[in-house]
């Protein structure tokens, strides 16, 4: 496997060029967010700031209630994770390890639904959430109030047990041996106990991966919250950031600070769980 040094050097140069394109936007927005105001609009550009300031971060929090939006987004993303892990693993386990009539047909329908474009269900979901009976001022027939609209449930419930979560967990449980199940059954354990005490602890890597995906999806989602949440106190960080860019006289310092704040939780999650991240994508990728 001897390749010429020139060829190797070219590959390296190419790799480095790609990485620069991928990383420079982060670096540049970080520099913009910590440099003094008057230096932001200075030509020609200077890479090294003359001084450091946190004033843009302070201003970002003053212009937009980022603290509130941050905790709203966190709550929504965490609820998404909890629901998907629990419901996804329950049904994934059932589809993989339990036998019942209609199992394979139901699983196929669930899988096929992954292909339905989100835009089709968008408006009817709005309709359904608005007309859920007995909540948000609605009577038994679902008329009168706003149903679940403008509550966090309007964002949580439609994504609470996605086809992807079920599919992902099923693939994992299929790969685990069934012997454990047989043995426990002979010893007289119930199915719920077998699922919870034996298979769930083994599924930790899969749960971690799915958790990361779900958190990322929940944290980054935009169109759903945009439609379902109108109450300013319920807005998410993505909505806040988008509203921020609507400002006519854009203040790029605070804007870059805001954009970075919106990325930080995912970045930390990624750095902590990098191993699972890549494994998880590899896993779903090859199964696709």
């Amino acid at each position, binding site marked *: 496997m001897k390749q010429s040094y020139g060829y190797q050097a070219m*590959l390296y140069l*190419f790799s480095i060029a*790609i*990485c620069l394109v*991928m*990383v420079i*936007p*982060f670096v540049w*927005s970080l520099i913009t967010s910590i440099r003094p105001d008057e230096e932001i609009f200075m030509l*020609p*550009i200077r890479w090294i700031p003359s001084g450091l300031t946190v004033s843009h971060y302070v201003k970002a929090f003053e212009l937009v209630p980022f603290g509130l939006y941050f905790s709203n987004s966190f709550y929504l993303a965490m609820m998404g994770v909890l629901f998907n892990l629990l*419901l996804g693993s*329950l*049904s994934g386990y*059932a589809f993989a390890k*339990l036998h*019942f*009539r209609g*199992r394979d047909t*139901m699983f196929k329908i669930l899988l096929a*639904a992954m*292909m*339905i*474009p989100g*835009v*089709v*269900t968008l*408006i*009817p979901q*709005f*309709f*359904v959430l*608005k007309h859920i009976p007995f909540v948000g001022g609605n009577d038994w027939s679902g008329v009168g109030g706003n149903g679940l609209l403008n509550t966090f449930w309007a964002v949580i419930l*439609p994504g609470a*047990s996605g086809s992807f979560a*079920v599919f992902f967990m099923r693939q994992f449980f299929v790969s685990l041996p069934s012997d454990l199940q047989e043995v426990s059954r002979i010893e007289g354990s*119930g199915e*719920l106990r077998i*699922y919870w005490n034996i298979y769930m602890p083994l599924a930790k890597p899969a749960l971690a991966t799915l958790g990361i995906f779900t958190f990322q999806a929940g944290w*980054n*989602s*935009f*169109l759903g919250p945009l439609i379902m949440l109108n109450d300013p106190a319920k807005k998410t960080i993505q909505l806040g*950031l988008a509203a*921020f*860019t609507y400002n006519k006289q854009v203040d*790029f310092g605070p*804007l*870059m600070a805001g954009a970075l704040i*919106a990325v930080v939780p*995912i970045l930390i999650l*990624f750095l902590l769980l*990098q191993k699972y991240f*890549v494994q998880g994508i*590899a*896993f*779903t*990728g*090859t199964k*696709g």
Partner: protein
Amino acid sequence: MASVSKLSRHQSRMGYLFITPTIFLFVIFTIIPVIMALYLSFTNYDIVSKNDFIGIDNYKRLADDPIFWTTLKNVLFYSVLYIPLNIIISLSMAVLFMRKRIGVKLFRTAGYLPTLTSGVAAATVWIWLLNPEYGLVNELLSKIGITGPSWLAEMPYAMLSIVFVTLWQSVGANMIIYLAGLNGVPDHLYESAKLDGANAWQSFRYMTWPVLRPTTFFVSTMSIIGALQLFDQAFVLTKGGPANSTKTTVYYIYQQGFGQLQMGYADAMAFALSLIILVFSLLNMKLNKEDESII
């Protein structure tokens, strides 16, 4: 035997119990909405008052709505650029970062980094980078003697910018998927191909590419579904401008449905768009199958 059937009854009861919450949510938030979408597209539903059956009026209106056709043209133009480029770039990155070279982990991480951002955050950062006067992109271009355009405000460049930003944000994820697919090619195959005198292109063309066919199918299908539903980046970067040149169909559906409250009409559009997505997905499936028989 009695105990066995009791056991299997218990098992199937528990099976149904386990899937009940998922199926319940699935019916309420997927099955019913899909049926309802079809029904609503034949009504003039506007949230507030009306909900009358008006037949195919929405679809007739759709056919005569120039903005709808413009948005469709926009997303098709976007897709035609975005999908092949996405596959070519992410595959090249995977091939480039496949071998265990020094620093390859760093390269992979850097390549993956943008996929962690949201469409909104990515767009926000790029608004600044693409700023015509103070943006980094035009500044760098001026260093090599090119006067960059006002990227987000001029006609062909606005859509090209969106293509670029969405590529920046998504090629990393597909690179990882391709890297996973490449794990399926044992190293010794490359070694022996080399011994047989195959050059880099030949071993890619006759080994890597066929092995990656299922991965490419997966990546292209997901790209089609995503690309034709472009929204976040267009909403933040250009707000559909200039002159509707970056207004996407989902953007228009959002405006008609939730801005004008013309939900029936918006649903007709959503249905039309998903039919188009379906056609393209089937086409993609067919394309992939046909290729296989050639090889």
